[in-house]
C-alpha cells in the first residue's frame, strides 16, 4: 500500500470518536430487514412486560406526557458507518422503568412488524437508552423507525430497534433477529463485538 492510503487511514483512526473499523458518514443510511410498518398513532403503544406477568403500557399521548430529554450522541452501524453528534428527542427508559420491579437481567425489544433484538437490562438503564420520536428537530421519519424507535447509542445501531413496540423482560439472554444468525449477542462497538 502506498503512502497516501496509509496516511488516510492514519488520520481516520486519529478521530477518537470513531470506534475501531468505523468511518464517518454525513448521510443517514436506511438499513432495514423488511417493510416499514404503518402504525396509526391512536393504535400505537409502548409496553413493558415482566417475568411475573406485569404488563405496563403507554398510549402515544401518555408517552408524550412523560419527561422528554434532548439527546446528542454518536451512532455506530455494524456495517461500518458512524454518524457523529446526532440529535434526538425522547423518553429515557429510566422514566419508563420507574414503577417496574423485576429480577430479570435481559430484555427482548419487540418492534411492530416482528423485528426483535436482545439487550441486557443494565445497558438500557442509567441514562444509556431512550425511546426516541424526534430526529434533528423533526418527527422521526417512518423509514428511520417512526413513530418511535429504541435508541441505545453505545451499542451497534441494530440494537436501536425501529418501530419499537415494547420490551419483554427475560431471565435469559434470548438472541433476536440478527443475533440468532451470526451477529454478536451484545454488540459493543468499542470492543468490535460484531459477530458471534
Amino acid at each position, binding site marked *: 500500500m502506498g503512502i497516501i492510503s496509509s496516511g488516510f487511514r492514519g488520520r481516520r483512526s486519529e478521530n477518537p470518536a470513531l470506534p475501531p473499523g468505523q468511518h464517518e458518514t454525513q448521510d443517514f443510511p436506511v438499513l432495514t430487514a*423488511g*417493510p416499514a410498518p404503518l402504525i396509526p398513532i391512536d393504535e400505537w403503544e409502548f409496553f413493558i412486560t415482566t417475568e411475573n406477568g406485569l404488563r405496563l403500557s403507554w398510549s402515544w399521548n401518555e408517552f408524550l406526557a412523560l419527561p422528554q430529554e434532548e439527546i446528542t450522541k454518536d451512532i455506530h452501524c455494524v456495517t461500518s458507518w458512524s454518524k457523529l453528534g446526532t440529535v434526538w428527542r425522547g423518553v429515557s427508559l429510566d422514566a419508563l422503568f420507574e414503577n417496574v420491579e423485576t429480577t430479570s437481567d435481559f430484555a427482548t425489544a419487540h418492534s411492530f*412488524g*416482528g*423485528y*426483535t433484538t436482545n439487550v441486557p437490562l443494565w445497558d438500557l438503564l442509567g441514562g444509556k437508552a431512550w425511546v426516541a420520536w424526534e430526529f434533528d428537530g423533526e418527527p422521526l421519519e417512518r423509514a428511520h423507525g417512526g413513530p418511535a424507535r429504541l435508541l441505545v447509542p453505545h451499542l451497534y445501531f441494530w440494537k436501536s430497534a425501529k418501530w419499537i413496540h415494547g420490551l419483554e423482560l427475560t431471565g435469559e439472554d434470548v438472541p433476536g433477529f*440478527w443475533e440468532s*444468525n451470526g451477529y454478536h449477542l451484545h454488540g459493543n462497538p468499542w470492543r468490535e463485538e460484531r*459477530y458471534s
Partner: protein
Amino acid sequence: MNGPDNFAVPDSEDQDIAAAPHDPIPYVDGNATAGALSEVFRIDIIAALGRCRHCGSVRAFGEAMAFTDAPGIVVRCRDCHGVLLRLVETPSQYWLDLSGLSYLEIDREE
C-alpha cells in the same frame, strides 16, 4: 405475536402488510440475490420453487422480496412478507437460515 424463531408471521389482516404499497423501505426482487447466494448454493436457487412456511404460497425464489440494505440479506415472501431466508456473511463464516422455506423444488440438470 411472533413465531417461535422470532419472526413475525403476518396475515392478510395485518395493518403492516396493508401498508406495503406506501412503504418507504426499498427492496429488490429475489433475482438480485443470485450473486451472493451462488457463494453458498451449488444449485440455481433463483429458479427453484419454494414454499413459504408462513402462508403456504409456492413461487419461484427469484420472485421474492429481497432486502439487501441491512446487516445481512433478508428474503421475504411476496404474499405475506414472512421471512424465507436470511444470509449473514462474517469475515470467516456464512450464516444461512432457511427455516422460512418448508421446501425447495429444484430441477435436476438434464
